[in-house]
């Protein structure tokens, strides 16, 4: 892991340490998704990229996306698989006692779909002690991806918000202009500090983006507005934490 890059920018793009695990996850999502639209082919990449040809929009799209979200989170155990794919990096960033967000979000961004997240940062609201994992299931480039401000530019963008009249407009324009547009191959993932400002452009390419996003944090690190029990679950515990927690359980039993 390029520690210096992360410290300077607040994000890092990393190749999967275990691409087989990520491929397994992508293929499982593909198997679920293709049943929803009666696709008989075997090419996951083509299916995802050309998904807009099914012309699903509004609630039709959202209902399917939500069904997949439930499946990905509960049955496919995506938080565990993404962790396995980037285990060394995540252990370096977060530590050995690690929590994972209960739900793994799925975004399907079709060409020309203006329903994109507004320019924002995840923290505050979320804890600044989390890391966000953004995992595209297809190659991304140009407007098919997202843009992100580094630490220094995030500070500048946030200053613009102080203007009560047009602050958000200036903030948005600045982020669109100064944000780094990500170019990533399937297998690479973006891990970023949740205080970074980021946004999604209107997808003007001829392919649909499918991506997952999920958060990881340390067991005892401070929480944001989203509490531990409601938003996170245990992913890994160090041997030391396991022994200590067993001891604490005994104490709590008295």
């Amino acid at each position, binding site marked *: 892991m390029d520690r210096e890059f992360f410290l300077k920018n607040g994000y890092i793009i990393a190749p999967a340490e275990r691409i087989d695990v990520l491929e397994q996850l992508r293929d499982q999502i593909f198997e679920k998704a293709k049943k929803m639209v009666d696709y008989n082919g075997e090419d996951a990449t083509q299916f995802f990229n050309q998904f807009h040809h099914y012309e699903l929009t509004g609630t039709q799209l959202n209902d399917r996306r939500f069904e997949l979200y439930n499946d990905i989170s509960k049955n496919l155990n995506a938080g565990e698989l993404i962790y396995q794919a980037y285990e060394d990096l995540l252990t370096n960033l977060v530590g050995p006692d690690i929590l994972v967000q*209960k739900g793994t979000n799925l975004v399907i961004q079709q060409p020309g779909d203006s329903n994109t997240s507004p320019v924002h940062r995840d923290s505050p609201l979320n804890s600044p002690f989390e890391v966000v994992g953004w995992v595209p299931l297809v190659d991304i480039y140009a407007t098919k991806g997202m843009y992100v401000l580094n630490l220094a530019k995030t500070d500048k963008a946030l200053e613009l918000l102080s203007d009560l009249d047009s602050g958000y407009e200036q903030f948005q324009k600045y982020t669109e202009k100064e944000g780094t547009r990500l170019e990533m191959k399937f297998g690479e993932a973006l891990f970023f500090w949740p205080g970074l400002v980021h946004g999604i452009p209107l997808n003007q390419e001829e392919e649909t983006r499918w991506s997952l996003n999920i958060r990881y944090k340390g*067991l*005892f*690190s*401070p929480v944001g507005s989203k*509490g*531990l029990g409601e938003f996170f*679950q245990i992913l890994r515990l160090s041997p030391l934490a396991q022994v200590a*927690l067993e001891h604490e*359980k005994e104490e709590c039993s008295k």
Partner: protein
Amino acid sequence: MKSYYSCLDAGFVKYAPQSLQHLANGEKAKKLSGKIIFYTAEDFKTLPSHGVIKAKMDEKQANIDGIIFFTLRQFFYGGRFDYKFLKYVLDEGYEVHFAREDISVENQQRLDELFPIFYATQFVIKRDEAESSWDHITGPYERIDQEQIISKELHNVA
């Protein structure tokens, strides 16, 4: 169809009104393919001891499968995670569910699995939140009590 008691968080009604807590607990019951047959809430003074719900459980005619609490925080009012009471409820043969966290504890094994997240949740809240935010949200008569205490203390100082 399973039947549940609903136990609202009396200490948090100011921020999550009863009506909202009813909805959340009812929704949790629905997810469990069950229904709420009775609801209750602790007195402010029994928040740490769970006295009210304990008494309801002791009524042997209680023909329920479990208790749905609004939030895990209801097990933190004593200043630490009340593992003992949760275990007691399970030992009595009832399931325990939390609506806000969408967590179910069906048996001792599940409680053991969940202990780390329950413990850490309580630990982090106690460490990081202002002590006053940890108290139950007081109603009018509690405020009077507080005023009386303060006035008494002032009197003593004077």
